[in-house]
């Protein structure tokens, strides 16, 4: 980890829950991006985490914008900076709800237009800000306040939607692997055009586990292949180090599921379906990495 700078852009006085991994991820995102950066934040946990006026827990400018509007706002900001001859990083840091649901139109538009920015979706698989309702990114079987019996639909495949826009760079990451995340942000910001990073961000109150287990739960997601770390540069997919083992032989999904309270209503059928979809996904990624697709 020695290559990660000591500078902090996220101060200690945030209003995040204990064990919040989306704040942890943001800490590394900002370390990689450095001070010449503006964060664009739609309504989400991050709008709370930054604290209450007149204070801010961040050491870079943060532009708060309405729920549906982050990517479009960043589009305008990026153009404005470029037109003024500035290289300032424009980074959207948005939740899964603000990305896969209400914000997807703006996201699609900004990617289609080739906006020079980095869009990061930190995915806690629910609407954290409003108290854990389901989002399109909530996995099958997970209990949320609006799916009290467990979600009956599968998780929306955001990455394939973004990939269909053919951005020069996109990647997945997980808060449990900060060095991997750090490097991906660095690489993303070295490339011009629209970049996308999708971070799986375990959330203690939402996923119903103790706050000291955040890293462990993140690692289980990767080890079981529920979350695969990879990069896609100019269309070419490369699986990242921590996911190599899962690609060969994933741990059974039960290990991941049992670590969390939100799956307590998942039936054996649902667990089997989750396991099947992992296998299907891993097979697809393997083939794609080998260039067979």
């Amino acid at each position, binding site marked *: 980890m020695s290559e990660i700078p000591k500078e902090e852009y996220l101060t200690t006085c945030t209003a995040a829950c204990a064990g919040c991994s989306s704040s942890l991820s943001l800490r590394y995102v900002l370390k990689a991006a450095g*001070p010449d950066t503006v964060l664009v934040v739609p309504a989400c946990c991050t709008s709370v985490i930054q604290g*209450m006026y007149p204070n801010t827990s961040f050491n870079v400018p943060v532009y708060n914008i*309405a729920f549906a509007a982050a990517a479009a706002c960043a*589009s305008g900001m990026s153009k404005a900076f470029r037109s*003024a001859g500035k290289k300032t990083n424009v980074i959207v840091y948005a939740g899964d709800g603000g990305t896969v649901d209400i914000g997807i139109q703006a996201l699609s538009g900004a990617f289609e237009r080739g906006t020079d920015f980095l869009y990061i979706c930190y995915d806690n698989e629910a609407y954290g800000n409003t108290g854990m309702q389901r989002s399109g990114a909530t996995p099958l079987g997970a209990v949320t306040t609006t799916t009290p019996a467990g979600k009956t639909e599968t998780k929306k495949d955001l990455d394939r939607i973004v990939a269909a826009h053919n951005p020069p760079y996109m990647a997945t990451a997980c808060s449990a692997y900060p060095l991997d995340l750090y490097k991906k942000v660095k690489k993303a910001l070295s490339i011009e055009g629209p970049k996308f990073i999708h971070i799986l961000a375990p959330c203690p109150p939402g996923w119903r586990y103790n706050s000291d287990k955040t890293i462990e739960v993140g690692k289980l997601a990767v080890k079981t292949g529920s979350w695969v770390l990879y990069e896609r540069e100019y269309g070419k997919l490369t699986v990242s180090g921590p996911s190599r083992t899962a690609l060969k032989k994933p741990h059974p999904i039960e290990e991941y599921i049992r670590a969390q309270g939100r799956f307590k209503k998942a039936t054996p059928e649902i667990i089997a379906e989750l396991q099947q979809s992992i296998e299907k996904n891993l097979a697809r990624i393997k083939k794609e990495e080998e260039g067979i697709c």
Partner: protein
Amino acid sequence: MLMISTGNKAIAAAVRQAAPSVVAAYPITPQTEIIEQIAAYVAAGEVETEYIPVESEHSAMAACIGASATGVRTFTATSSHGLLYMHEMLHWAAGARLPIVMANVNRAVGPGWNTWAEHTDAFSQRDTGWLQVFVGTVQEAYDATLMAFRIAEDERVLLPVMVNLDGFTLSHIMQSLETVDLGDFIPPNRLPYAIDVENPMGYGPMTGPDDYFRFRWDIERSMRDAHEVIRETEEEFARRFGRKYGPAEEYRCEDAEVVVVSMGTLGKEAEVAVDILRKEGIKAGSMRLRWFRPFPDIDLRGREVVVIDRDYSFGFGGVVAASLKAKTGTECYNVIAGLGGQEVTYDDIAEFVRTRRIGEEMWFGVSE
């Protein structure tokens, strides 16, 4: 330079001269010509503007907000459903104190689909904190757009400005247009709290009741100060370029016993009606309200008033008539006319005056 232009093209010409750094827009009839013309200027290298062809109006305003927050000049244009789709972002732009200028080509709101003039679209954005000016001629569309940048960007205002023009009856008609040599009429945009990575700040974070309430009061204070900024700007415009404007355009009002109050192109029709009525011995005048927000201070004491509303607030009344009554206590004959592009001629307006029934409301052509 003297030329013939549509209202839309006049606005585009003003935008070219004001040279915003960013224009983000989405097409909608009858506004489309404005943004096509700007796109053409950009493509031909006639203006140094970044043109962002966004995927929706919500995104158009969001892009302007993002750009404007960095301290650059921004413009967009829309109409009707586009304006309504932006609604959330309109509050945001004003709340964030961003001097965005937007042309809104006034158009009816569906269903049923109707692309002709009506002011309901703009009036339903009444409480967003935007300044709103309504124009009556192609020349005024151009002049008001130039002044809008200066008013919006004035440090005493720092609020967005909407320039309203009637769909088709102004957006698409040809009139003569005299462009000006702008010189330094619009100073460079200086946003006191533009995003600056050397001095990082949070913009629009969570705000407790006391601060939030104070921010709303600041908006209202600027709205009040805007009266003076508008007056100064219009006076300087008159001094430099010879065309005079005010909060309302008065025509033969000095000795008028009955005054027609209206907005947009109907206000120009009303002037012809006034001439007809004067020939008949009726001492009529016309007062075309140009500014809707901030609402102008006007004096109608001692006159009979006929208000033509090209809009309606259902279950309540015509918006202009209700505003006048609330502000000045004036009772009027409220004619609801021209909705969805209904034709209203100067003869019709003359007849409204002849048959006025002060204290009543009449829906022209349908309520009787």
